[in-house]
């Protein structure tokens, strides 16, 4: 490419309908008006849900007191809110956001809402390696997240390699992904029979995706990892647009589509695996959040910020329900998200139009 004598001049983009130009100093970027409104609305909803999350539980806490704790002021409810509910909520927020973005990225590249990390085996790869390590006595959260990420990437790579045949056909990709998901789940179950009863129970709960007993020990490394990945997400939000182009146009514009796609998928897999390591494979969040967000914003692309907010909202609300529904017993949050997500997936299948690609849009 560099040997081309005169590089094509940068084409000044025409402002599309529905966008506003926002200037910050010398930088200018396009803002989708409706998406911005939706993000704002979701943000408000999320804040309200978080407050409810902190207040509702075994004992009810006044919203004012809960806010005091969050702001670091002395309060009588320090223990319940600050020690028990707040860190768990933070884990839920981060996990939900990470799954939302991960799902959005992978769905964008696959151009198929069904190619979410929990359906094509990525979460199962992360689970298999993590549960394996747990049964062999590794319980340190300094190690487990890395194993999750390795497991997730390995599973994704396997599915990709085996589904590749002169191209990546969506149906083939999904079918092979489902196959690997089943096999990896059986490997996970195998590990569970090896450990003793307590480890098995811990693993069983972890595997469904649970925030039970999660605290700052998980929240801190998770927040740090996501902070490090944030620039990549900004890059992804821009790069996403070029992926939507067809191959010829992209090549003509000088976009290296292959690399961009690989980068997006890799980022998606890493995000999904990191989230899985913190809370287990919380089913369907990665499938649901981007799709709902896209329908709300009515954009052609999956809006990543709204996906993140939507994911966080789903997880926080689902965990609130999971804690209270059968109290005093707490359900794993994954049970709730699956109970919502599975019917949605069924609905997607039933009303799918382009059956040939196994896709819906």
């Amino acid at each position, binding site marked *: 490419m560099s040997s081309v004598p005169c590089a094509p001049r940068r084409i000044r983009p025409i402002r599309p309908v529905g966008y506003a130009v926002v200037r910050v100093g010398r930088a200018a970027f396009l803002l989708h008006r409706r998406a911005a409104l939706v993000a704002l609305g979701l943000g408000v909803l999320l804040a309200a849900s978080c407050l409810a999350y902190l207040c509702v539980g075994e004992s009810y806490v006044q919203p004012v007191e809960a806010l005091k704790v969050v702001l670091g002021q002395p309060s009588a409810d320090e223990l319940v809110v600050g020690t028990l509910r707040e860190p768990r909520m933070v884990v839920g927020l981060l996990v939900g956001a990470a799954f939302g973005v991960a799902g959005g990225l992978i769905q964008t590249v696959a151009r198929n809402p069904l190619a979410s990390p929990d359906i094509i085996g990525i979460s199962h790869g992360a689970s298999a390696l993590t549960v394996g390590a747990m049964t062999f006595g590794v319980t340190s959260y300094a190690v487990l997240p890395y194993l999750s990420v390795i497991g997730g990437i390995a599973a994704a790579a396997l599915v990709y390699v*085996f589904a590749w045949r002169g191209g990546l056909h969506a149906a083939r990709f999904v079918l092979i992904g489902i196959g690997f998901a089943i096999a990896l789940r059986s490997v996970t179950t195998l590990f569970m029979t090896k450990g003793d009863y307590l480890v098995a129970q811990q693993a069983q709960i972890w595997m469904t995706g649970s925030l039970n007993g999660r605290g700052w020990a998980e929240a801190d490394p998770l927040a740090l990892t996501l902070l490090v990945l944030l620039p990549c997400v900004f890059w992804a939000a821009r790069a996403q647009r070029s992926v939507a182009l067809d191959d010829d146009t992209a090549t003509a514009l000088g976009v290296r589509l292959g690399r961009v796609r690989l980068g997006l998928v890799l980022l998606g897999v890493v995000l999904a695996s990191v989230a899985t390591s913190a809370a287990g494979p919380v089913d369907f969040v990665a499938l649901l959040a981007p799709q709902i967000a896209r329908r709300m914003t009515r954009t052609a692309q999956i809006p990543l910020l709204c996906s993140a907010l939507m994911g966080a909202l789903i997880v926080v609300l689902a965990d609130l329900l999971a804690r209270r529904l059968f109290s005093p017993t707490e*359900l794993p949050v994954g*049970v709730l998200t699956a109970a919502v997500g599975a019917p949605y997936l069924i609905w997607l299948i039933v009303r799918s139009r382009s059956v040939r690609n196994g896709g819906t849009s």
Partner: protein
Amino acid sequence: MRVPVRRAAVMMAAVVALLLAVLLSLAVGARAIAPTTVLDALLHGGHSDSAEVVREMRVPRTAIGLMVGAALALAGTVLQGIARNPIADPGILGISQGASVGVVTAIAFAGVHTLTGYVWYAFVGAGLASVAVYAIAASGRGGASAVKLALGGAAINALLVSVTTAILTTKASALDEFRFWQVGSLSGRDSEIVGQIWPFLLVGLVLVLAVARGLDALALGEDVAKGLGQNVATVRIVGGLGATVLTGVGVAAAGPIAFIGLAVPHIARAVVGSDHRWVLPMAAVLGPVMLLASDVVGRVVFPPSEVPAGVMTALIGVPFLVALVRRKAVAA
């Protein structure tokens, strides 16, 4: 009469393979026992340690493997026939998971801990799951395509797994019994199971064989089948009932064992053609061969511990599924 002779010869070869698998299953394990000793123990009794191991542990285990392997392979064959879909399999379609939910319900709520008790729960679970998945896949445009079936199965699987987890989380006492059952294994199953499952197996077998002709007609397309005078709805209902009974009893006896129902019918069709009156018996012979072989391999790969047969079949099944999906565009 040339074709039947060839088919009969292939069938003989399959039966020989089955005998070999049975012999291996009886001879190989933590204690390797010479085939002659195995035969001796079976035919002449005797009270040596080896003879006791063969009779008390390996014979029931092998018998369960025979029955479950045949049941799952037949169920897969019929499902592929009535759905006219090459990737139909009780595991992929969530039918096994339905049976699992039935069993965990029986253990946790009904206080049922015997196979004859919870096999009924397994039937109900398997039946509901199969109806649900087929309804999902068949609705909407395009009918029950491979991808829609697989996805419907994945959705139902996820839903049922979450139900199972919800039960196991709230009823911790059930987990310890369930986790060993869930993995899908032939070891540690009660020897009485053999005596308990054969009536169900027989019922399933009769139902399945009854629709063999109907499945052949259905393979030509729904309209042609109707034109040939087949009652398509009856074939689907009876076949589906047979597959449900077979899956339910297989899962209740050995836990969810994946991929036997997927792989075996394809192998059977490859060797005897598409006539279901040959494919079904062939699948019934090859299913146990695959399951017993997986079980034997699982016993020797990581001594002294065993890899359960369900895990081995999944590991063997994945390359198979990959090959199947890659070979030709599975009508998506």
